[in-house]
């Protein structure tokens, strides 16, 4: 029914009103569910603090693992005794890499990617070198940090 001076019928008014109610209801539900289902993202650590004594004495041409967030970090002593730290995650598809002492290279088993002693990608699909982390030794502490991150330890 439409009153003479009205722009729309009552039926259309009610349909719009309740249609809008439905749209708002479902939009609200979808928004809330989506928000809840999407995880709160953790973030990669800026630095980790390790015990220096556990790592410095490893034999040459070996690596030792440390936890870099949920990923492996590698403390690596080259055959000549030089030391470096890097993230042990392949730059291709994020598989964990392993050090092959015989070849003196890092190897990713997922798609057969190889990295040399400096972490440079030399064979297989990886597009970038391994991520190098910076380490400093402060007393008994071995601090491994992302490149360019200023480490501020809480004062105990």
């Amino acid at each position: 029914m439409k009153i003479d001076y009205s722009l729309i019928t009552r039926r259309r008014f009610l349909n719009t009103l309740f249609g809008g109610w439905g749209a708002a209801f479902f939009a609200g539900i979808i928004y809330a569910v989506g928000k809840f289902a999407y995880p709160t993202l953790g973030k990669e650590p800026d630095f980790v603090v390790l015990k220096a004594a556990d790592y410095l004495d490893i034999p040459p041409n070996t690596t030792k693992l440390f936890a870099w967030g949920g990923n492996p970090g590698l403390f690596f002593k080259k055959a000549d005794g030089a030391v470096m730290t890097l993230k042990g995650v392949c730059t291709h598809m994020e598989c964990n890499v392993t050090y092959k002492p015989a070849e003196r290279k890092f190897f990713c088993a997922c798609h057969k990617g190889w990295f040399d002693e400096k972490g440079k990608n030399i064979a297989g699909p990886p597009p970038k070198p391994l991520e190098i982390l910076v380490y400093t030794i402060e007393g008994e502490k071995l601090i491994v940090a992302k490149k360019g991150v200023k480490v501020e330890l809480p004062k105990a």
Partner: protein
Amino acid sequence: MNFLRLKGWFSGRYDFRELARLAKEKTRTLRRFDFGAVTRFLIALQFVTGMTLAFYYVPHPDFAHKSIIDIVTKLNMGWFFRSFHHWGAQLALLFLFIHLFGTLLTKSYRNHREFVWFTGFILLGISIFFGLSGYLLLWDDRALAGVKVATGGVKALPVIGGFLMAFLRGGIDVTGETLTRFYAFHVSLLPLATLFLVSLHVNIRKKEKSRTGFFLFGQGNAHAPILNQKLYHDLIVWLLVLGAVATLAVFLPPEIGIKADLLAPTPENIKPEWYFLFVFQTLKLFPGQIFGLNGEVIAILLIATAMAILFLLPLIDKKSSRGEPSPLFTWVGIAYIAYIMIMTIVGYLS
């Protein structure tokens, strides 16, 4: 109360005759081997075995691996149910691929059956995701690496890639959060979606019944009532398939690797499940850099584009929908099938 009175009591409250009339009216094309029906049967079995496994499985990174070992070593028939669930999944996927290839080659997507193709295609995607999520529930070293690669590949998609990857993983990396998430997908979201889509898939083709496909009886026009003629034909095949799954389950139980460790190096000679091999092999073909661009991103984009074209094929193949012969798309179909099969074999042998 005798049976007739009981029947009378029920039909006074619920109109069974209407239901029986509907069932009698429904007809389907008779086939000697109906791949769609076989897949449906296998999915039904997956629901049963999956529900029983869910009684015992613990979706927690510390206990998941052990709970599966307990299922196969300590529980009555546990080894059989786990093995059956595994082999049922493998065969369901195999028959799904054959079903898809057959539909593609005979162009059964034509004659207003585009939605059958679309729903079927989505169901194949869901089934592959079923496979991937079930694979992670094992929580062994291979599953972890496999899921890292599979979810990492999603990141290469433009715009939504990073968002989608974080949603799938439940964080920036594959962790215990991913396990609980995949468990939720595997036991609740995907089964519900499957039920809904299967019911659409089998009921949507009201207007034009399929008269194409393989293994047809007679001239391919033989429509038979679902009850009981079609059902009895299916039952013969289902019995054979049931026997095949049970035999595989008994003689080839799937292995369980060592418990997943987030920091451990990827196990060597790792290969994805067979239904991912053609993607895996394609990724290996691409170098890290192509003209200064990331090779992986290009590879994933190419695969995604090829999938999208396959999905939209009923809309692209205009000639078929007009009922004219369309040899070009026969060759397109053959190319897709040949590529998938060859890459799978190469991946398997290499």
